[in-house]
């Protein structure tokens, strides 16, 4: 009972703080400061239609590199935590119940298209809503569907590791190329900007988003497989 009332008091305090913050908040009338600059010059400077992509990949590209690093650390942490210790015996290999025919047929029919949709999302990240993180998550959802349909499905870890390391390394390499050939680290203008609004435009943004998409997709697939392997 004491615990409940302390919790209630804490929540009242938090509600009071939130109310006083939101109470005197008024909507923005126009873009301010840095956002104005991004919107006014983003499209003509970087050639990206989607300004959120321009900010994520180029203006704040270093943050995104850090974000990818955090995701990589979390995926490695999951792998280390759920790794089988040497002495630990393999769990009893009772075969898991197979999925129904509807699920298996649906999974094999849909998963190629889901992967294709994920690739579409990250290739068009500079033109439409979407990008590497979203596309990677969609690709990982195709892997999850395969796991649901085939409980004993194994991923090729060597291939996953190669794709992941390659894309991470090339991402940093592309950033360094921007530093040496254009204005700064992760500057996208060392490749030609191309015609505004076409798929091969905006310099290295589609390249970077493809690499991020591959990296996020393989990392999330790795997390899924680790968790599946240890489910009790």
């Amino acid at each position, binding site marked *: 009972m004491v615990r409940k009332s302390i919790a209630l008091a804490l929540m009242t305090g938090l509600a009071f703080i939130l109310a006083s913050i*939101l109470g005197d908040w008024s909507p923005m009338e126009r873009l301010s400061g840095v956002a104005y600059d991004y919107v006014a010059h983003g499209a003509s400077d970087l050639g990206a239609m989607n300004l959120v992509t321009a900010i*994520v990949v180029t203006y704040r590209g270093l943050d995104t590199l850090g974000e990818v690093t955090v995701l990589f650390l979390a995926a490695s942490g999951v792998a280390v935590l759920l790794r089988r210790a040497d002495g630990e015996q393999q769990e009893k290999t009772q075969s898991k119940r197979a999925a129904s025919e509807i699920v298996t047929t649906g999974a094999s029919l849909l998963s190629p298209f889901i992967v294709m949709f994920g690739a579409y999302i990250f290739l068009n990240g500079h033109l439409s809503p979407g990008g590497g993180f979203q596309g990677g998550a969609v690709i990982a959802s195709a892997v999850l569907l395969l796991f649901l349909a085939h409980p004993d499905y194994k991923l090729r870890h060597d291939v996953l590791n190669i794709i992941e390391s390659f894309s991470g390394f090339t991402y940093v390499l592309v950033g360094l190329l921007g530093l040496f050939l254009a204005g700064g680290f992760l500057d996208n203008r060392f490749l030609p900007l191309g015609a505004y609004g076409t798929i091969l435009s905006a310099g290295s943004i589609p390249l970077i988003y493809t690499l991020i998409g591959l990296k996020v997709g393989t990392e999330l697939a790795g997390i899924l497989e680790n968790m599946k392997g240890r489910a009790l």
Partner: protein
Amino acid sequence: MTLVMVLGAALMLVGFWGLITRQNMIKMVLSLAIAETGLQLIMIAVGYINGGTAPILDSAVDKLSAVQQVVDPVPQALVLTAIVIGVAVNALMLAFIIRLYQKKHSLNISDYKDMKW
């Protein structure tokens, strides 16, 4: 957009309420995820400008007068980062829970007092 903001604040309250009252660790992770969603809604609402459209400069938005037509893209980019970090943190917390459950076969947070002083 004030509606979205109030909704976000309500979700944050629900999430934190769950975080401090629940004993089941999986429910605590879920509560944290709910609170996170509320925070993301608030951040998106902060960047909204009345009558503005998405910050994608296609044929519907004139490139020269874009600064008067679009909403603030910076909070949206921040929320994109926040979502990805949230996924990573949740995955890591769930991995810890799987490990803890294998040690003691309990999901109740009160059964783990080893580090308590």
